[in-house]
């Protein structure tokens, strides 16, 4: 790429150890951020979206070194900030500012708004009170408050006003880059738009680079030039906002997009529903991390069932393989004396029989085994009979158009020559 990005994040990792006992023996790792890479150009607004718990806030705090990243590099203006010592880090923090989610707790209740806005100035050594006051009054007016508000205290302001003050505070040291972590999600919808347009104005007036972190696709669409979609510690799709919104190339992005409420009732479809929660980041699924919830998982060759049935079959398969299936409990819930295959079939919404004869035979046998109490054996049989590349190997990042990348097996011509067509996802070249 010919662009000269201001921030380059490469393979950023933040793993938290899980320790146990007195000796703090490490028994596991939470992979909150697991190899994330993206760039932010000068004067560009980049979005980072994903469900809560996907690691986007951790990515933000570790890229500013508020928490030490456990791997990867972050280059700011060409320099690797992960190598910085304290003095250099302080200089970097003047150039990169942050806006926090909760405006009510991000201001010290004992400091007037003026003192809070001036705090970064003081930290960076501007000791002249009158100069600080002049900067603060000018800033407050720029963000739509009045200069006299400097003497008021945080509790005298509304959430939206406080978030404006937060913008003023972030601007106070004239940074090049502002990271906004869910800047509007704590605000009323009517106020969100005001604050977003303030961010937009500030960004274009001063040519700042912005990283906007949000779970709300609507917010991202309104202000971002480019979007990175994050799932379980990884980026699954990135590209220019119009392309990602107009032609999403990852089933997860599609699901997120269908969650934006539409004002037109005729266009309101059923949308794509994601079942289940985000999996535990201390034990991410093998293969593609999204395969446990993906509506477009690639089926085994020759399996002649509908995609929804295949999805249900896969749910059954992974639950059984994890040992997380209890036919006895299903029987109790249905007031049956003993577990039967039909109950399990019903619980997973599987038709009886499956249209595919061979698959039906395997499924019936596995359900029989499970009903007899041997869930593990049933799981093994299902895994063997219904293989999918999505659970077996991690997808590679592929380029779907010059500036648009996605990480999904549907783009792999060897694995899914035409399966993705039904989802508007075509095969792509390897990156």
């Amino acid at each position: 790429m010919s662009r000269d990005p201001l921030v380059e994040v490469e393979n950023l990792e933040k793993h938290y150890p899980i320790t146990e006992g007195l000796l703090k023996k490490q028994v596991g790792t939470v992979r909150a951020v697991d190899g994330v890479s993206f760039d932010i150009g000068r004067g560009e607004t980049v979005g980072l979206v994903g469900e809560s718990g996907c690691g986007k806030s951790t990515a933000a705090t570790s890229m500013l070194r508020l928490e030490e990243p456990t791997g990867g590099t972050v280059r700011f203006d060409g320099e690797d900030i992960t190598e910085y010592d304290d003095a250099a880090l302080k200089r970097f923090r003047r150039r990169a500012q942050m806006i926090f989610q909760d405006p009510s707790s991000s201001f010290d209740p004992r400091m007037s708004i003026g003192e809070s806005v001036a705090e970064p100035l003081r930290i960076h050594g501007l000791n002249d009170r009158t100069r600080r006051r002049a900067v603060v009054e000018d800033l407050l007016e720029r963000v739509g408050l009045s200069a006299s508000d400097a003497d008021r205290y945080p509790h005298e302001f509304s959430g939206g006003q406080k978030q404006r003050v937060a913008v003023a505070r972030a601007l106070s040291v004239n940074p090049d880059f502002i990271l906004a972590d869910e800047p509007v999600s704590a605000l009323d919808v009517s106020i969100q738009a005001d604050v977003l347009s303030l961010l937009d104005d500030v960004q274009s007036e001063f040519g700042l680079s912005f990283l906007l972190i949000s779970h709300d696709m609507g917010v991202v669409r309104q202000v971002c030039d480019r979007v990175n979609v994050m799932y379980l510690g990884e980026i699954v799709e990135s590209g220019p906002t119009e392309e990602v919104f107009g032609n999403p190339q990852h089933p997860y992005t599609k699901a997120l997009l269908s969650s934006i409420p539409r004002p037109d009732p005729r266009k309101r479809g059923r949308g794509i529903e994601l079942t289940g929660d985000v999996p535990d980041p201390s034990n991410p699924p093998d293969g593609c991390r999204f395969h446990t919830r993906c509506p477009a998982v690639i089926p085994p060759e020759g399996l002649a069932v509908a995609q929804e049935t295949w999805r249900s079959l896969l749910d059954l398969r992974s639950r059984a393989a994890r040992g997380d299936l209890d036919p006895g409990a299903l029987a109790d819930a249905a007031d049956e004396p003993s577990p039967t295959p039909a109950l399990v079939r019903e619980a997973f919404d599987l038709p009886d029989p499956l249209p595919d004869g061979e698959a039906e035979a395997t499924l019936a046998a596995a359900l029989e085994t499970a009903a007899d109490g041997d869930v593990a054996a049933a799981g093994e049989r299902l895994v063997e009979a219904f293989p999918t590349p999505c659970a077996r190997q991690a997808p590679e990042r592929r380029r779907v158009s010059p500036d648009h990348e996605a990480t999904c097996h549907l783009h792999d011509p060897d694995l899914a020559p035409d399966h993705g067509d039904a989802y508007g996802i075509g095969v792509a070249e390897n990156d």
Partner: protein
Amino acid sequence: MATDSRPDTFDSVDWDRVEADTGGVPVVAVVEALTFLAFGAALAYDYLIVPEGEPTVLDWDVTAVEWLFVAVLLLGLFHVVVPLARSRRMTAYYWRQFRKNRLAVASLGYLGVLLVIGVLGPAIWAAPNETISYAEAYAPPIFIGGDLASLDHALGTDAQGRHLWHLIVYGIRVSFEVGLIAMTLAITIGTIVGAVAAYFGGYVDEVLMRYVDIQQTFPVFILLLLLIYLYGASLFLIILLYGVFGWEGTARLVRSEALQRTEEAYSRAAEAAGASKLWVVRRHIIPNVSSTVITAATLSIPVFILGEAALSFLGFGDPGTFSWGRTINAGRSDIDSAWWISTIPGLFLFLTVLAFNFVGDALRDAIDPRSDSG
């Protein structure tokens, strides 16, 4: 900046030049340092140059407790009065909150008057022992009337004819010395231990907090009796022991508050803006913990005052001071014939303890951030 008459805006600040600017020391800090330097010099003069047993200035022989009391009052001036006067808006806001409690305002007024009398009174009214006059013993207060009642000793006299008012004035001095000095000691130690435990965490935290547990179970009263037996009773010793063994509660409070404050978004915001850990502790954690500390401090004063009065009542007090506890005890045997000797100092003690409690409660309501929702 002198070169440019336009007011500064955030994008006109030249950061390369600012970073070279080291800044100066605030004026108040200089004045405070000079004051304490003068205090140290006076202390050295009293202990090194003035001969033992001679008065320090005029006829006033400043005792160790009085030196400490002066130091505490100076500390209060620089760290309570000056900050309150400097941030008027904040002060006005808290005063509006505090004023809602009428009883506390009255209590504050009462304590203020008492403090002035306690500090200046001994210079106006003679020491009780100089008023001994057996001819005037057991004189009732003037509002009771009687042959001996006189305006000269309006509150009556005790068994030796000492004026009760003089006993009370000197008792105020003792009570305030005990309350304020012991409180300052306890709060200082407690805040440092609590903040250090919260800030360093890990083993430091573990060791300090387990020590606090041990100290809390330690019978201070028995140690006090032992020390009084060994060295004789002195007010200095009593104050020191109360201060040094009375900080566990504060340490716990400060630690838990400080732990909470470090997690607050404003602490993170300061860190993200480039602040050092020390900056965050000084500018955000301590000021936000201070409301809890101030309340705890105010409420600990009456406990110390009552403790000293109880010791004196039991006869373990400093025989050289005129503690209210001692006066109450002395009047105990004459309670049926001269009830005022015990009752009037008792009333003062009661009102003073009550007033400190009212003020402490009102302060908590006024400044505790948990009670004002943002």
